[in-house]
């Protein structure tokens, strides 16, 4: 690894000079888009069959952040999702539960109550999700409210406008402030890579978030297209790998949005396995932000164990 000197700590207390931070981010090795896409496509052509597929499906289920982020969300909808999170397939108790349920801050209380004692986490988006266009005080209040209501994980969005206009210090300081507001809750930082446009920006934003104290870096809100893609996730996995090699601190990765099928999910697991490495192959370090993928995982799981496909009506829609 390149050595950046001792001053390069991970302390969220340190205020970093704007010039130093910008120079650091622009001093990171570039990303060749053609090469990154080629690598992601090649890994996507891995053939995961039989026992490996069974293992991958259970791992993927256990990594799902089951998500509902709609204006029309109600307590009833959230409770239904929580029930699904704990028993994804009511007819098969051997199916693992998902990692967390992800909701808006005002639904956290409902989710916490519904999931009490289940071991499934409650994640809440915060900081004026999905646009992030609100005063810092409002973002922090949003975060504190979600944590006070019992959220164990906070999914914040970065200020893409500030990032794209070169004001990386603003993004850094906001992230540091949100991290402090999180207290013990884990902080996932959403880069909204669909708006960052280039893989170079994805790498820079990843490092920026990690240096500001992110516990996880997450691709997307799911509200912008494109959401998660394999090349973007590849670059983020390279970033967390390099960051751990440089600092010793491990940061998780969460692709979100656009992951719909078991095949998609397995491609992401292969990407993790061969990029960041097996240390990241657990719900503690890798999550899949998605909802519709869960039923496909359950269908493929039943197909593997019984040898026949069950129709979609044999899996619950919540």
């Amino acid at each position: 690894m390149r050595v950046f000197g001792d001053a390069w700590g991970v302390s969220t207390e340190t205020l970093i000079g704007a010039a130093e931070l910008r120079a650091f981010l622009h001093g990171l090795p570039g990303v060749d888009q053609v090469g990154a896409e080629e690598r992601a496509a090649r890994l996507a052509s891995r053939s995961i069959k039989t026992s490996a597929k069974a293992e991958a499906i259970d791992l993927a289920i256990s990594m799902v952040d089951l998500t509902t982020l709609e204006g029309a969300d109600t307590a009833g909808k959230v409770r239904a999702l929580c029930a699904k999170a704990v028993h994804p397939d009511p007819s098969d108790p051997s199916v693992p539960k998902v990692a967390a349920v992800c909701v808006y801050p005002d639904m956290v209380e409902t989710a916490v109550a519904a999931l009490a004692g289940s071991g499934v986490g409650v994640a809440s988006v915060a900081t004026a999700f999905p646009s992030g266009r609100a005063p810092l005080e409002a973002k922090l209040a949003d975060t504190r409210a979600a944590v006070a209501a019992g959220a164990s994980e906070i999914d914040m969005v970065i200020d893409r406008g500030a990032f794209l206009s070169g004001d990386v210090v603003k993004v850094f300081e906001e992230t540091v402030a949100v991290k402090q507001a999180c207290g013990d809750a884990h902080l996932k930082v959403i880069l909204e890579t669909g708006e960052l446009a280039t893989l170079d920006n994805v790498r820079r934003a990843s490092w920026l978030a990690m240096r500001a104290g992110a516990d996880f870096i997450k691709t997307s809100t799911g509200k912008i297209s494109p959401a998660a893609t394999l090349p973007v996730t590849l670059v983020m996995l390279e970033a967390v790998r390099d960051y751990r090699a440089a600092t010793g601190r491990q940061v998780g990765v969460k692709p979100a949005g656009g992951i719909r099928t078991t095949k998609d999910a397995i491609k992401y697991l292969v990407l993790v396995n061969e990029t960041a490495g097996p240390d990241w192959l657990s719900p503690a370090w890798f999550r899949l932000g998605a909802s519709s993928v869960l039923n496909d995982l359950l269908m493929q799981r039943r197909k593997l164990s019984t040898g026949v496909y069950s129709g979609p009506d044999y899996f619950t829609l919540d």
Partner: protein
Amino acid sequence: MTVFEYAPAPESRSVVDIRGSYGLFIDGEFTDGHGEPFKTINPADESVLADIACADEADVDRAVKAARAAYERVWGAMPGAERGKYLYRIARIIQERSRELAVLESIDNGKPIRESRDVDVPLVAAWFFYYAGWADKLGHAGFGPHPQPVGVAGQVIPWNFPLLMLAWKIAPALACGNTVVLKPAETTPLTALLFADICRQADLPPGVVNIITGAGDTGRALVAHPGIDKVAFTGSTDVGRQIARTLAGTSKKLTLELGGKAANIVYADAALDQAVEGIVNGIFFNQGHVCCAGSRLLVQESVAEEVLERLKARMATLRVGDPLDKNTDIGAINSAAQLDKIRELSASGEQEGADRWSPPCRLPDRGFWFAPTLFTGVAQSHRIAREEIFGPVLSVLTFRTPEEAVTKANNTPYGLSAGIWTEKGSQILWTAQHLRAGVVWANTFNKFDPASPFGGYKESGYGREGGRHGLEAYLNV
């Protein structure tokens, strides 16, 4: 926490039907050879695949005469548009039978199915499609209004890309109106013989394509045959020299595509993760059995340590094993003889003081295998920096300035290919201008396209294959 192990994912062999023995394909028929038949084996498990006929001088003569007759009676006089139709038909049949060709190639050669399926066979079809398009446009290729074919081409190809090298030779020759006698390598004849079947399926007139099998003697008889007008050879520099000597003073045209010792230059400002991919692809693609392989890594000293660290981590994820497993990255070494050569040169690297490293990697018990290998501390004077190893062995050298990079890159008797890795466009242009190599890749490596000419400087041979330039070798210009 358990490691995510990929279960075996073998491609089915049922799609290929390997016969017990194969004859010579002469004048549209499979006929017996009169030399001593030999066996072709599967390098992944050393099992015998088939008995292959061996062409002696009389057989070579028959094949050349058949090609001459087909040239004079049918093919040479046929309008280009009609020739093009045959080539398009062959290209389509190759696509239709692509899985069969890919599986057979992997069985006979040892290369991973991922490569034969995703690289070799699609390129083979692309080559025929591309040159099919030229068949009726030769007057616009820049060689005068009515360029004429040469006649009968004798073509000798190597074992590293058996079917692709066949396509590189046969497609342009046929498009220009020549007929051919082609000899595949003795260790990898099966896909060429399947191609003979494809020629019949396409109703190609008898004698236009003749495939004769055999070892060095057969090749020598072919290139020395007085009825041949043009020789095209891809293979070792030693054999290339012999052929050039044989042809000196004759009217035969000659193109040679020989060895290489390509430099892959990584500047400090390169996109390092992609550069590492390019290094891996440059040397471990096709087990390093690639004449244009990036076998000398020249890395700028300021990033050498970091690049090596990343490279070693990446090499540890390479999957070596069953060529037919869809997840295999590195397959079997093609032959015992080649394995001996790789071992001998690697041993010399250690003796001369370079540091050898391979990732932990379990190799199968049977068959010919060599773990991906890295040598650091290599000097320009070491044999592993000068001689072509033709295996999965990378020699790492460092440089300080762009001038030093170019000097070291050019300091080789070869000059086939080179790679440049930098995010700076002007650096790419400056470096490419100063490299004496036929192909220079920038921020990628081992990319082939039928529209792009390929060929070497110095001991890497002469003449160009591919693209418009590739027509010249098969036209009387």
